[in-house]
């Protein structure tokens, strides 16, 4: 049996899913965060059920640009039951989707979620009469606290077994007449058997391009008779037909809401008060700077405090391991590479990575990111984008790969391309580790801040240039601002772990292996020839030690590798004893800007083709050289 979770963004779908899946899918308090859908097997009353979590959708109407995977799944796939998760505190709007889901004619149950939130807003819902009106069972839940979920799944199982189709909730009279007319036209042979005729009729009225195309393929003559029906509806209402249908659905949804809801006075809590400050036109901006600065200092403070004792321990370990082998032998080199690889992961990367990931998860889960988009919208307009592009860019500070994938929340192709290109320039957590591990650790946190600001400056320039170069205007910001929420510790841990697991299982073994390979290459004197090959760049242009050449090659695999490889290539964790601060700064600048890692190039290629990915990668090297040479000269003059 298969259940499908469908609902609007921020309705608490993912936390219902997680309750049966055991935190394998991470949630985020941001609209459309679950971009691809996840499935899990769950044991309900002794039966194995597959539960599918679809991305949040506001409506079943698919637009021309974004043909949603959720819509397609709901229309085409086979499943036994829809669990429609409804945000009780926004019943009217949520019901608009519910009405569309009902017209799918499949067995359905409603999880009336966030009942605590609704009560806080002074909304009382008579869920029994809601169930009577819609003809489907309604179960009240508070998914955040796990309340009512057991009953939800038990009732779901029972309802799916009976397999009863929901009631038909009619639109207004004229729309119904139009629907009947189209239904009669397609009566002879249903062109798409898995979708009820009524829904096909509604979608054709709304001008859904995908359905219309499929119907047209099946019965070509039908399309010509459609404008007649549409025109009559438009004349009667004075609006375009898509507005008539959606307006009618809106009216039905709100009249259902009026029949089942009793409004009392809402309680104002700390969240509303804090939120007013965060979004206020005078305090919002300064608070944003304060929050991001706090974030930076905490990550640095924690990382630094943990890193130092660990480095001391590993230096001791390195010494004692070296004592076990004959100096200069192959086994000594391999053992040394192994210890260095371990040290790089545990002592240098993790102390900064873990607090950073936790911090980013907190920003996501409190719902602060959409607020950032709101505050920075006018700034983003200046570089030819709009506020929503802030979200991929901020996520880029975590990892470029999911950040570039998240550019698909943007409506226009142009914005997606520009944002993806800019996102690859944002220092991801791997590059952050290099910035913190080299510049902040040996030159002080202020210098690290300078690098971040310089990075933003370069991105602004690039954005302005790209926006001028690519035609078209940004469509503008339309973004729901969800309520602030306290992050749930379990979700935070799950999310941090999910990102960390990626490092531990993929990056770290790569790190250790590369460290050993580099050791062997050095032992066999092969590293010298690669270093010599790169020396025009490293020594002549950037003024770095010749040994760093190899580290930059490894850095293309993972950016953390540059730091660990540097430690290995120079043979000490006290990098500042062999490199001057000017060299550290130049090296870090180059690492921050040059070629994004292999994984990022791959995802860029998926988004915009190999040509685009290659162009961006080549471009990053040019920018990296310019910025780091400029940094070198400037530091030499003023530093």
């Amino acid at each position, binding site marked *: 049996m298969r259940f499908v979770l469908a609902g609007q963004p921020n309705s608490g779908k993912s936390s219902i899913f997680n309750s049966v899946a055991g935190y394998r899918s991470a949630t985020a308090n941001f609209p459309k965060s679950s971009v691809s859908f996840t499935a899990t097997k769950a044991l309900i009353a002794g039966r194995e059920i597959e539960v599918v979590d679809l991305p949040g959708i*506001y*409506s079943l*109407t698919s*637009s*021309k*640009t974004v043909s949603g995977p959720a819509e397609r799944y709901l229309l085409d796939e086979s499943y036994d039951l829809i669990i429609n998760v409804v945000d009780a*505190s*926004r019943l*009217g*709007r949520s019901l*608009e989707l519910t009405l569309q889901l009902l017209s799918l004619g499949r067995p359905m149950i409603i999880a009336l979620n966030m009942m605590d939130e609704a009560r806080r*807003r002074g*909304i009382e819902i008579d869920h029994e009469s809601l169930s009577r009106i819609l003809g489907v069972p309604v179960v009240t839940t508070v998914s955040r606290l796990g309340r009512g979920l057991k009953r939800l799944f038990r009732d779901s199982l029972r309802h799916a077994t009976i397999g009863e189709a929901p009631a038909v909730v009619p639109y207004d009279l004229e729309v119904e007449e139009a629907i009947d007319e189209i239904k009669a036209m397609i009566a002879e042979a249903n062109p798409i058997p898995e979708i009820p005729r009524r829904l096909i009729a509604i979608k054709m009225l709304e*001008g859904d391009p995908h359905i219309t195309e499929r119907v047209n393929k099946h019965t070509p003559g039908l399309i010509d008779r459609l404008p007649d029906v549409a025109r009559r509806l438009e004349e009667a209402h*004075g*609006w*375009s037909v*898509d*507005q008539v249908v*959606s*307006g009618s659905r*809106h009216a039905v949804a*709100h009249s259902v809401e009026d029949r089942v809801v009793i409004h009392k006075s809402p309680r104002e809590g700390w969240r509303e008060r804090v939120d007013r400050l965060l*979004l*206020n*036109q*005078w305090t*919002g*901006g300064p608070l944003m700077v304060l929050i991001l600065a706090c974030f930076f200092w905490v990550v640095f403070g924690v990382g630094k405090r943990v890193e130092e004792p660990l480095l001391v321990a590993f230096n001791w370990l390195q010494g004692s391991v070296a004592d076990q082998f004959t100096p200069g032998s192959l086994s000594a080199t391999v053992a040394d590479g192994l210890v260095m690889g371990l040290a790089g992961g545990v002592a240098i990367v993790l102390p900064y990575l873990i607090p950073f990931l936790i911090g980013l998860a907190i920003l996501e889960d409190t719902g602060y990111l*959409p607020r950032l*988009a*709101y*505050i920075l*919208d*006018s*700034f983003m*307009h200046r570089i030819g984008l*709009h*506020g929503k592009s802030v979200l991929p860019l901020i996520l880029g500070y975590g990892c470029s790969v999911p950040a570039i994938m998240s550019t698909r929340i943007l*409506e226009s192709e142009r914005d997606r391309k520009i944002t993806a290109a800019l996102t690859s320039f944002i220092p991801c957590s791997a590059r952050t580790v290099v910035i913190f591990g080299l510049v902040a650790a040996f030159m002080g946190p202020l210098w690290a801040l300078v690098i971040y600001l310089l990075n933003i400056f370069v991105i602004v320039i690039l954005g302005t240039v790209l926006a001028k170069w690519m035609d078209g205007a940004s*469509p*503008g*910001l*339309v*973004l*729901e*601002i969800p309520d602030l929420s306290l992050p749930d510790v379990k979700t935070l841990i799950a999310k941090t772990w999910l990102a960390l697991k990626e490092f531990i299982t993929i990056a770290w073994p790569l790190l250790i292996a590369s460290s050993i390979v580099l050791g062997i290459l050095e032992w066999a004197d092969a590293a010298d020839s690669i270093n010599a090959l790169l020396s025009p760049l490293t020594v002549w242009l950037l003024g770095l030690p010749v040994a760093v050449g190899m580290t930059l090659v490894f850095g293309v695999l993972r950016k953390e590798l540059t730091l660990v490889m540097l430690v290995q290539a120079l043979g000490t964790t006290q990098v500042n004893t062999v490199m001057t601060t000017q060299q550290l700064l130049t090296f870090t600048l180059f690492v921050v800007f040059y070629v994004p890692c292999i994984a990022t190039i791959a995802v860029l290629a998926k988004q915009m083709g190999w040509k685009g990915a290659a162009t961006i990668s080549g471009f990053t090297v040019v920018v990296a050289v310019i910025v780091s040479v400029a940094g070198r000269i400037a530091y030499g003059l003023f530093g």
Partner: protein
Amino acid sequence: MISSGNKWFFLGYDAELGGGGRFSMMTLDTVGIHRQARVIMIDGGQKVRSYLNTLGIHIGDWLTVVQRAPFRGPVLIEIHGTRVALGRGVASKVQVDMDGVVDTLSGRMEAVEAGS
């Protein structure tokens, strides 16, 4: 039925209505903080319209302007218990009515029917 000397007061475009001075249609980006307004028309293509529709913003709906970001930033509105940020460009495409002088067609019809 509705026209008594007046033209159709269609979507608030009737200038005779209410005698000039009380004509109060404006675009959403010019509405002040904490003011309530009613949507009477959404300009722009079907794409913008249907996107606003899915977020619960329809013709005839009441909304409250909660915040206006500085430097020509977005307008934050509250509608049906949800807060939505609209960029200035989008907000300038939403025509609203502040005092209820200009009414929607359906509202007029209701009023006429109730009166007769």
